[in-house]
Structures are given as C-alpha cells and as structure tokens.
C-alpha cells in the first residue's frame, strides 16, 4: 500500500497564477490542463472498489465451491500500488531550481542596488533651475560650454558649426 493516498488537489492555483510571468502563461495553462486531467482520471474511479455480494451469488450459482473459491481469491489478492520513481527526480530538480532562484535573486538585488545608486546620483546634482553655468561645468563637463579649449558658434549646437555635414548630403 502507498505511504500517501491523494484524493484531491491541494494546490492553490490562483496564487501560483499570480506568480507566473507573462511570457510563460501558455506553459502554465498547459500544466494546469494536464494536472486537471490527472485529477479527473483519479476521480473517474472510486477510492475503494465496490463490495461484491458473494452471498447473493452463492445462493444463485449452482456450481458448488465456485463462489467460495472466488471469494477466497478475491479477498486474498492485494493490488500493488504503483512504485513512485519520479519524486526523487523532482526533488533533485527542486534543489537545482532553488540554487538558481537564489543566484537570480542575488543578481537581481545587485541590479536593484545599481538602479538605486543611479537614482541617488540625482540627489548630488543641483536642480537645473538653480544651476549656474559654472555648476553645469562642474557637474556635466561634457555638456557645458568650453570656450577656451573648444570654442563654438552661437547657438552652440552641432548644426551651426563650421565642420557640420548634413547626414543626407554626400561628401564632396
């Protein structure tokens, strides 16, 4: 006999569905369909086989000893519960997956920290409306004007410079 008999599904499917990423919904639905199918297959048959009314048969069947021998054999037979060979595999998979999840979460945390650092960077930068041109040069050296080393023509954008070439114009 089995160590564990199962009669109904104990899985909280709604909670699981919440945790499924968008891209994997079809897989999740397929899994759910399969699981439902298995459950239906279980439900198709009763948990215990119905009783045979041997007394009635004995009263009606003329062959002497036949029903008795049937009854003896029927009661003696032990239906073997199928051996579970896959649970260890699943457990191993789970262990592997746990490691993967741990690694993924650690990576994710480092990414979050990176993003938070990027957000915090703006705390160290003066609001643009309070900046002077010197502040701009201090905080964004590559964007500020640099008239000594790299003088430019007003209004200091790329189109107005002498060496500007329009992208659609062939070089001559």
């Amino acid at each position, binding site marked *: 006999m089995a160590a564990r008999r199962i009669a109904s599904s104990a899985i909280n499917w709604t909670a699981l569905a919440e*945790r499924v*990423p968008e891209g994997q919904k079809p897989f999740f639905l397929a899994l759910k369909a399969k699981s439902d199918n298995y459950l239906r297959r279980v439900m198709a048959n009763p948990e215990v*086989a119905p009783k045979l009314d041997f007394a009635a048969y004995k009263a009606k069947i003329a062959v002497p000893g036949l029903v008795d021998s049937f009854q003896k054999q029927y009661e003696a037979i032990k239906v073997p519960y*199928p051996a579970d060979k896959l649970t260890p595999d699943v457990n191993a998979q789970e262990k592997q997956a746990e490691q993967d999840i741990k690694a993924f979460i650690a990576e994710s945390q480092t990414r979050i920290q990176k993003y938070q650092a990027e957000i915090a960077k703006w705390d160290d930068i003066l609001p643009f409306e*309070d900046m002077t041109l010197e502040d701009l040069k201090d905080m964004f050296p590559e964007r500020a004007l640099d008239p000594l080393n790299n003088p430019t023509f007003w209004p200091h954008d790329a189109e107005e410079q002498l060496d500007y070439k329009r992208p659609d114009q062939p070089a001559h």
Partner: protein
Amino acid sequence: MMLSRLVRPSKSAISQLGTVSVVQGSQLPANSLCVVRCITSGTKAQAPFKEGPERDLVNFPRPKQLINPSPVRLGVFPDSWFTFFYNKTGVTGPYAFGGGLLTYLLSKEIWVLEHEFWGGVSFFIMIIYAVKKFGPQTSAYLEKEIQNDLDEMNAGKINEIEGYTKSIENEKKSQFQAEGQKMLFEVKRENIALQLEAVYRERLMEVYRSVKNRLDYQLEKTNAERNVQQKHMVNWIVSNVKKAITTESEQENIKKCIGDLKALAARA
C-alpha cells in the same frame, strides 16, 4: 525670462515672501536686507541638494535666482527699506522720513517741479495703464515659456528616475515570480501522486470488474441451464401426456364433460 516676474508678481508669491521675510527678519534683524533678497524660488519642493564637505554655506550661501521680485510698498518702494527703518523708528518712521525729505527738497527748491516733471507724471500714468492692461497676458505667456524651458531641462532627469524606479519594480516582481517556482515543484509532486493514485484505482477496478464479470458469467450460465432444463421438462411432460391420450379416453372425456355440463345446468 525675469521680465514676467517684474511685470506682475503673483499675489500669493508676494504674500509668501512677505511672511517669510518677517519671520526671518525677526530672527536676523541685521541681515534682513539680505534675507529678503535671498528668499527666492522654491515654489516646488525639491530634494535637498548635498553640498560638498568643504562648502561654507554660512558665509557663502548658494546664490539663487529670484523667481519673483522683492515685495514693495506704495507700489514702488522696496519693503526692505521699511524693514530697515522699522527697527530704529517703528512703523511710521519711514513714512515720516519720506514725507519730511520730500517737504525739505520741495521747500528748499532743491527739487524744482518744472513743466517737464508734470510731463513725466502723465507719461508715468500711461505706463501704469499699459502695465495694468497688457501685463497679465504678457506675464501668463512668459510664465508658460519658462515652465516649458524648465520641463525641457528636467525631462531627461525625470525620465531617468522614473525608468530606474520602474526597473526596480520589475526586478522585485521577477524576484517574486522566481520564488513562485517552488510552488511549481509542489504541483509536479502532486501530479505524480495523482497519476499513481489514478493507476492504483484503475487496477482496483480492473480486479473488481474481472471477478464480477466471471461471477456474472457463472450466474448467467446457471440461469440459462435452468431455463433450458425447464423447457425441456415441460416439453417432455406435454409430449408424454399427449402420447397417453387415446380415442377411447377422449370419448370418455367428452362424455364426462357432457355429464358435468348437465349437472351444472340442473343446478342452475
């Protein structure tokens, strides 16, 4: 850009500045002039900016662009002048000083009001009219332009912060979803158990059905045998009885029947 602020300072901004200047003025009387000048922008709440560790903010506060002009009294005189007088002379001091100075200048004919002055007055009236008439529209238009400029400047920053915030949210969500995988293994184990159970139940039913089928077969067989035997017995009896009937016995039968009928008729 500052023109709009000069043309029409909004009332609320002025009142704000006024209250702040009074408060700050009472705390720092000597510095009140500077305080009024230094109170600026700040209509929007901004994240505090972290200065460098060596920055001396007490002696060298960070200069800020004045969003609205300093408040004035009587339309033209800066409020800071009155605040300056207030500590020495009280409320009426500046007015007394102004009136006295004007009287002195006029009576000593240091300031001579010749016809050019009256021309200036009419010119000034026209300027006031123009400001009152066209000021609000100009101010609104220029305010909008300034706001556009600010939005444009801040768009990149805001986008970046929003993008990173969204990324953090996504990361947290994917962490949550990754942890959901553990439930997946529960499902897998349960699926295995369900399949095993299904097979077990099918086997039970198989045994039950085959035994029942055999018993039913035996039952049917017994019933059929009985039927056949019964039929055979009936046929045999009937045929034997028929064989036993001869012509004499038939006539005797008929006579007996007629006799019975007569007896019945007599009784009726």
